[in-house]
């Protein structure tokens, strides 16, 4: 069989099977984009700032011209970290009922919900309003911090996949609207003043929305250029 007389790079016992020939090879095509929603193949084009590319067949978003550079994204993530800390430690609102003063933070509200016998709801609110947003911000700081200095962070693949997941399940913007709704609903019961935490969450919503809108493909590409996969 002349076809098998290829130079062998490593010496291994001949078992009859040829795993190297059987393994499928996946060749990269950086010049193409395949739509995630309808599988249509497109040529990749360079998008100028703020321009959005949509699939010709189904209209899905294919890409966005980068508005924020990687350095800018790192700055956004740092600012988001500050607002996340303020949003969770500073009071969202201060209430006053017949002389009884009360300040409310989200971690405290979650704790009281657990105490009241609804731990599942408390965990759901905790992960979507605090844990995933925090993961999102910290993973962005970690990944971008390394990439900007020209290094691939350890565990890059894992961090990026966790980041995608955290972004999908983080609901900061919903939480902000809920805070406003609950303020209106309790305004009839007690006198209340919005606190620093509420404004911090508003700033956090703006920052996260503007950074996550660009998606993660550009960070993957940056990692690839530096030698990750």
């Amino acid at each position, binding site marked *: 069989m002349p076809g098998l007389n290829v130079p062998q790079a490593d010496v291994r016992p001949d078992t009859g099977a040829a795993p190297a020939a059987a393994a*499928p090879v996946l060749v*990269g095509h950086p010049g193409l984009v395949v739509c995630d929603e309808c599988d249509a193949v497109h040529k990749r084009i360079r998008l100028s700032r703020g321009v959005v590319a949509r699939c010709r067949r189904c209209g899905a978003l294919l890409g966005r011209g980068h508005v924020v550079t990687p350095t800018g994204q790192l700055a956004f993530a740092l600012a988001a970290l500050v607002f996340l800390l303020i949003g969770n430690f500073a009071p969202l609102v201060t209430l006053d009922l017949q002389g009884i003063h009360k300040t409310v933070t989200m971690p405290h509200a979650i704790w009281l919900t657990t105490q009241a016998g609804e731990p599942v*709801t408390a965990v759901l609110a905790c992960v979507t309003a605090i844990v995933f947003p925090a993961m999102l911000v910290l993973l962005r700081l970690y990944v971008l911090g390394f990439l900007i200095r020209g290094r691939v962070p350890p565990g890059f693949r894992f961090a990026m996949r966790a980041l995608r997941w955290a972004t999908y399940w983080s609901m900061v913007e919903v939480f902000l609207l809920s805070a406003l709704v609950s303020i209106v609903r309790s305004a009839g019961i007690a006198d209340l003043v919005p606190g620093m935490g509420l404004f911090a969450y508003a700033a956090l919503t703006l920052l996260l929305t503007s950074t996550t809108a660009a998606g993660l493909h550009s960070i993957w590409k940056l990692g690839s250029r530096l030698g990750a996969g």
Partner: protein
Amino acid sequence: MDEPIRTGRQLGLYSCHTCGRVSERTGHAAPDAPLACPRCGTHLHHRNPRSLERAWAYTWAAIVLYLPANLLPVMTTVSLTGAVPHTILGGIHELWMNGDWGLAVIVFVASVAVPIVKIASLVLLLLSAGRNSTWCSRERTALWRGIEAVGHWSMLDVFVVVLLVGMIHFGPLAGVEPEPGLVAFGAVVVLTILAVSSFDPRLLWPDPADNPPQPNASPPPHE
């Protein structure tokens, strides 16, 4: 612009949903051999495996839990005059009667309209995808995209109750207690999000050229 559209399945191209890399499969392999994206390790498929089964399972679970989510109270307000249970719809009614119409509309859209529209859309998408329908593929894909975008907003009422529990906490004077309906409601929200994300919208584009598969699996011998 009028070039015919080719699909990844026709050309043997796989797009990675995690990192966007486009991979072309070369070499001989079984058609169902597992493929992983070389850049990020995500499994590559032309259609996500068992997408319809998983999406149906999540949808049915959401439909079942939809009843307790709306019939059971989500919270109880305690005051000197007694304890009053509130359902989701009751809370909206209360906002409306108090004159907070804008807010009542927001909560109604997030807590009632969005879950109903999501579940109805999921059933429509799943039924039509199960029949390999080519009817209005573009519009159905847009519908899928829409229910994916608005899904998170139904969490509104879960956060509202948790915050009210934290805010109205004045002993016997005034208090808010969470109730089991809230767990069911939160579960409906999470289950519909899972159903939408496990549905592969590429199933809305059944390709006559793909079915049956082209007999080009074995490339001609060049050597």
